[in-house]
C-alpha cells in the first residue's frame, strides 16, 4: 500500500509524487502467480497419472551429476522393468533415451533445444508417444540444470535432486532454489570420495538449510553402495 495516500497500489513506492496517472486510469488488483498456468497443468498431470495408477518421480540435478547412470542402475535393480517408464529431457540428442531403451524400458526423449528445463506441457505432450499400460512408475529426468527446473513442476509426485561428489559439497549452498524443492537429496558418485575434498555431512547440512529435515542418500551407482536405501525410498518401503 502507498504509505502517503493510502491507495492500495504497489505500483509506486513511498516516495512517489502522487501522480497516479490521468483520472481515467484505475487500479486493478490481480495477485496471481506467473507460474500458475504450469502449476495447474502439472497438478492435472499428477491426477491423470494417479488415475492410471502411475506415480511420477522427478530426477533433477546438474549436467553430469549422474542422473542417467543412477536411473540405469535403479532399473537394473527393480524387479519388473515393464512397470517402469522414462521421460528423458535434454537440449539435444536421444543418447539418454538410447541408454534406457537398451534396458528394455519404455522411454521417450524430449529434446528441448535451447530451453533449459522441462515443464508440465512438454511432459504431457511427450506422453502421447509413451504406452503407459501396465506402468506403475514414470521417471522424469529433467534437463541437467541446477537453476531453471526449480520453478517448473512437471507432473512428478516426488522429486529427487542429485548432486555428485565430483561437483563439490557447496552446490546446495550455491543453488538453494532447486534443493528447496527436493523430497530427497541423492549424493552420487560416492566411490569418488577419496579423490575429492567433498564432505558428505557438509553437503547435507547445506541442503537442509534450503529444505529443513531433507532426507539424504549418499550412494554410488557404480559400486552399488547406498543403492538399497535409495530403492527403499523409490518403492516407499522406508
Amino acid at each position: 500500500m502507498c504509505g502517503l495516500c493510502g491507495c492500495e497500489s504497489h505500483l509506486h513506492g513511498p516516495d512517489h509524487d502522487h501522480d497516479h496517472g490521468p483520472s481515467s486510469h484505475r487500479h486493478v488488483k490481480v495477485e496471481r502467480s506467473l507460474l500458475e498456468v504450469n502449476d495447474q497443468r502439472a497438478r492435472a498431470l499428477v491426477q491423470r497419472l494417479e488415475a492410471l495408477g502411475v506415480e511420477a518421480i522427478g530426477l533433477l540435478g546438474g549436467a553430469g551429476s549422474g542422473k542417467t547412470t543412477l536411473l540405469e542402475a535403479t532399473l537394473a535393480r527393480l524387479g519388473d522393468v515393464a512397470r517402469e517408464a522414462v521421460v528423458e529431457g535434454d537440449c539435444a540428442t536421444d543418447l539418454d533415451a538410447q541408454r534406457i531403451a537398451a534396458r528394455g524400458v519404455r522411454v521417450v526423449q524430449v529434446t528441448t533445444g535451447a530451453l533449459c528445463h522441462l515443464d508440465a506441457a512438454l511432459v504431457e505432450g511427450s506422453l502421447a508417444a509413451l504406452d503407459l499400460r501396465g506402468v506403475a512408475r514414470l521417471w522424469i529426468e529433467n534437463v541437467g540444470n541446477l537453476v531453471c527446473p526449480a520453478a517448473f513442476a512437471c507432473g512428478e509426485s516426488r522429486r529427487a535432486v542429485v548432486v555428485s561428489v565430483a561437483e563439490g559439497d557447496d552446490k546446495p549452498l550455491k543453488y538453494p532454489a532447486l534443493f528447496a524443492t527436493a523430497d530427497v537429496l541423492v549424493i552420487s558418485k560416492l566411490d569418488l570420495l577419496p579423490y575429492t575434498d567433498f564432505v558428505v555431512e557438509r553437503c547435507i547440512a547445506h541442503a537442509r538449510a534450503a529444505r529443513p529435515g531433507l532426507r539424504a542418500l549418499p550412494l554410488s551407482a557404480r559400486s552399488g553402495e547406498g543403492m538399497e536405501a535409495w530403492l527403499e525410498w523409490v518403492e516407499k518401503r522406508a
Partner: protein
Amino acid sequence: MHEAKLCLSLLDLAERALRAEGGQRIHALSVEVGTLSGVAPEALEAAFPICARGTPAHGARLRIERTEGRELLLRDMEVS
C-alpha cells in the same frame, strides 16, 4: 534463461485481468519476484518491453518488488 517465457505468462495473466475489468490498456504493472523463484529481475525487465510489443501492455511501466521467498506474482496494475 526462461524469463521471456515467464514474461509471456505475465502478459497472459495481465491481459485476462484487463479483459475482466473491461479495460483497453495497461499502463503499469507491479510484480513480486522472490529470491528463490529462480528468476532474475534484470532479465525480466529486459524481456518485458519486447514481449509487450503489440499487446495492450505496450509501453507499460514494470515495477519489480523483490521478496525473500519463492513467489512470482503479478500483484496489481494500472489500466484504462
